[in-house]
């Protein structure tokens, strides 16, 4: 009996081990780095995570790129700078003659229009579609029409209304090109791209390097959904086979993913690895020092640090482990110069619920700006940054980080003043905190330390009772969206290099306005800033608007501006810490 068991076990074990022993092994890449949470998508239109952007901007190239030192826009697939009309509305880009796709095809203006149209189509469901609808003339109307068409076709999508549905579908398919022709993007020839904005936008050139505005090769059309001979799905949406991002996908004559950046995707193994190799047709292909680059995926940050320490990995893009403060300490005392800090364009803050009269059956005192201001005046940010987190973050008293956006100086913000906060609380009808209900703070578990410290400060200084509610991240987001909080943790990473990337989130109708703050004066100031003709005037208006929210109305309480740590082996050159965590692989050289 025991002999049978041993034989069965060995019978199962041996072939597996032999197969693994002789499995083909690829040589190590020239450069290996870890993206801890891996790749969510390689579809540039659907990306919203930094690690996805990092790959996209290395395997694709937009009209412009960003200088890794200054983050200023530089030439990309188009010559720089573009021609800008005197009214600052029309931009003319000239595509470089030597811009090539990884299959050798020239990059054309039509490729950009294809990528942009795809990103603004509701069927693509791009998070950043607003970059088109907010800025490009005619885009908002086009998207609205597409949405109405979708709503109509969806309402008719029943067996009983099949005839009406198909008639409406045919009409919509016929009208689509005419509607899109009103979007102010055109290509008079293969190398010229002309676009017109709805209003002057001083940071628009910066946006043209953003992943949502990348070009898409024409081969994707082989994978476009068709219905009744038209290139739309049954509900009139433009959709593609989601497998189009795979380098080895060949359905319907598709040749696999074609990109135009310095690198191309050679292999993508789900949750394991993305291997990139040089794009042989890239203009500087011969100059690229690393021929192969591996992005490994480690779910466990500590394991990725161990892999780095053992030399299996050359670069880590994220060191946010529970012992990050220790890594920061070693970095600053010179013990580990390979651990570097990046002052990212991000603000960590608290939202006060400005709208709801009641929260979970209790009166919400934060509808009163005096209470919000009182709570803001007692916040001890230095304690959070220097004693609680200890990882080199910068104290934040403004929403927009200081020294981050050239020409813009954020307001000073509120200094700690406990006496004034007590006075304000008494004025609001809560002398010495009496009469205040149990205050709830909503957060996700990673914010535990900060929220505990804040709660303690408020309890000690304002004599209030705090109820801390830690929720798993999805539930936290849902509760925040439904406004079931009095105070909730917020975190905002800039999308582009302008104060409005932060300040727009507090406009009354903005979908990311978690506090529910609504002030027509603030909205009006942001509108006036958009219409301002000179940068100085625009920044002055924005500064006034920001002062309103961080010093007077206080819908948010800025706590800190994030510093994120990376680890770069000493033999790796060309990785420059910057606010966007943008590391162009074409600059990297490895001297092991």
């Amino acid at each position, binding site marked *: *009996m*025991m002999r049978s*068991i041993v034989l069965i*076990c060995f019978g*199962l*074990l041996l072939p*597996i*081990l032999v197969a*693994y*022993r002789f*499995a083909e*092994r690829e040589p190590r890449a020239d450069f290996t780095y870890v993206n801890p949470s891996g790749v*969510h*998508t*390689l*579809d540039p239109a659907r990306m*919203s*995570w930094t690690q996805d952007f990092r790959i996209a901007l290395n395997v694709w190239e937009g009209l412009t790129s960003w200088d890794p030192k200054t983050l200023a826009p530089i030439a990309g697939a188009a010559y720089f700078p573009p021609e800008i009309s005197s009214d600052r509305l029309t931009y003319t880009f000239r595509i470089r003659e030597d811009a090539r796709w990884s299959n050798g095809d020239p990059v054309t203006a039509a490729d950009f229009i294809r990528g942009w149209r795809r990103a603004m189509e*509701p*069927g*693509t*469901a*791009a*998070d950043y*579609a*607003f970059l088109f609808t907010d800025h490009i003339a005619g885009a908002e109307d086009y*998207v609205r029409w597409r*949405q109405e068409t*979708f*709503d109509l076709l969806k309402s008719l999508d029943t067996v009983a209304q099949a005839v009406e549905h198909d008639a409406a579908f045919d009409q919509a398919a016929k009208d689509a090109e005419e509607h899109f022709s009103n979007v102010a993007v055109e290509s008079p020839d293969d190398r010229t791209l002309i676009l017109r904005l709805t209003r002057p936008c001083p940071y628009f050139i910066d946006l043209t390097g953003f992943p949502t505005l990348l070009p898409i090769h024409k081969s994707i059309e082989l994978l476009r959904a068709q219905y009744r001979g038209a290139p739309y799905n049954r*509900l009139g*949406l433009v*959709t593609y086979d*989601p497998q189009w991002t795979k380098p080895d996908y060949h359905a319907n004559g598709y040749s696999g993913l074609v990109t135009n950046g310095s690198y191309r995707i050679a292999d993508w*193994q*789900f*949750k*394991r*690895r993305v291997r990139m190799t040089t794009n042989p047709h890239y203009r500087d292909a011969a100059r690229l020092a690393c021929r192969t680059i591996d992005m*490994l995926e*480690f*779910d*466990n940050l*500590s*394991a*990725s640090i*161990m*892999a780095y*320490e*053992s030399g*299996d990995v050359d670069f880590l893009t994220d060191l946010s482990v529970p012992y990050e403060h220790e890594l920061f300490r070693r970095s600053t005392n010179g013990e580990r110069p390979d651990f570097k800090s990046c002052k990212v364009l991000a603000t960590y803050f608290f939202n006060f619920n400005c709208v709801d009269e009641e929260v979970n059956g209790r009166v919400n005192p934060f509808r009163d700006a005096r209470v919000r201001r009182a709570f803001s005046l007692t916040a001890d940010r230095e304690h959070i940054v220097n004693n609680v987190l200890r990882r080199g973050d910068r104290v934040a008293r403004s929403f927009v980080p200081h020294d981050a956006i050239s020409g813009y100086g954020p307001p000073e913000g509120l200094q700690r003043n406990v006496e004034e906060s007590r006075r304000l609380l008494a004025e609001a009808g809560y002398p010495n905190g009496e009469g205040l209900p149990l205050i709830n703070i909503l957060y996700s578990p990673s914010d535990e330390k900060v929220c505990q410290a804040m709660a303690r400060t408020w309890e000690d200084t304002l004599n209030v009772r705090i109820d801390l509610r830690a929720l*798993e*991240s*999805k*539930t936290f*987001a*849902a*509760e925040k*969206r439904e406004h079931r909080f009095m105070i909730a943790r917020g975190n905002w990473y800039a999308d582009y290099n302008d104060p409005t990337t932060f300040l727009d989130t507090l406009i009354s109708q903005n*979908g990311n306005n978690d506090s529910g703050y609504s002030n027509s004066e603030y909205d009006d100031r942001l509108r006036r800033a958009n219409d301002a003709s000179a940068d100085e005037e625009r920044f002055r208006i924005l500064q006034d608007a920001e002062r309103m929210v961080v010093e007077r109305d206080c819908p948010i309480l800025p706590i800190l501006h994030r510093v994120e740590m990376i680890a770069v082996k000493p033999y790796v050159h060309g990785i420059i810490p910057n606010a966007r965590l943008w590391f162009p692989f074409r600059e990297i050289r490895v001297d092991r």
Partner: protein
Amino acid sequence: MTRGLLGRFGAGIITVFFVYALTFLMVVSIPGNPLQGGERKMSREVEAALRSRYHMDDNWRYFADFLGGALHADLGPSFSYPDWNCNQIILSALPVSMLVGGLAIIVALMLGVPLGVVSAARQGEWTDASFLSATLTCISIPTFVIGAFLLYIFAVRLHWAPIGGWGTLAHLPLPVLTLSLPFLAYITRLMRAGMIESLGSDYIRTAIAKGVSPRVAIWKHAFKPAFLPVLSYLGPATAQAMTGSFVVEKVFGVPGLGQHFVNAALNRDPGLVLSTVLVFSALLVAFNIVIDFLYTWLDPRIIEAV
């Protein structure tokens, strides 16, 4: 016997269906928007397009569509990984988990059975006591502690094994060993208990009294009935080792199915949650049927009961 096994098969299908229905109910009841990636809110247009793409407007339709697709081996799209469908995710992760889990069970079986037998044969001696202590330790210490410890010693300090990744023989020993330890401990204890009971039975005492050597009595006469509790444990244990190795996968960076169990639930990815639950429940039912079949082979009296 065939009718009995067919009956078990039918009951298994019904079980899997109920597990699916219950999971579906939980998936649609829990708070959190599966379409919401981070904290940045999506526009109405984006949400409408995604709801339409994934048939999320109508729960009943989604319930039926998913089930229909699953019957045709199409588990549909994943919300968290839009470039991949659930079939690709399962096919990429399941072989890895089956390999690590299968090897862990084989290791546990090959070491646990002899250890249990030796422990029972030397009941009350120091060998027995030390085996019992060791197994209790293996059961009590969480695998993430054992895993991290092994990783530190063998990968970081001694450089005998790689720290993470997958694809070579060198990636196997540490996760397999870590995963096998609790199973090894259970098997040792089950085997010991079964063997002690078996050795105490009348027919073994009679055989020994008639001059059969203890070695023959143990391995030839007592082993088969003593192994039955281990066998019944092997079904759920194998399924658990193959699909529930989340912690070990996390510690060693093994790209297996366990991580999708947890991450899909955290990401509110209904397609992937339902797919992983279906695969797990189907595996569990299948292993139990196989074990039932082996049971009848080892102990023919059970055929009558079946």
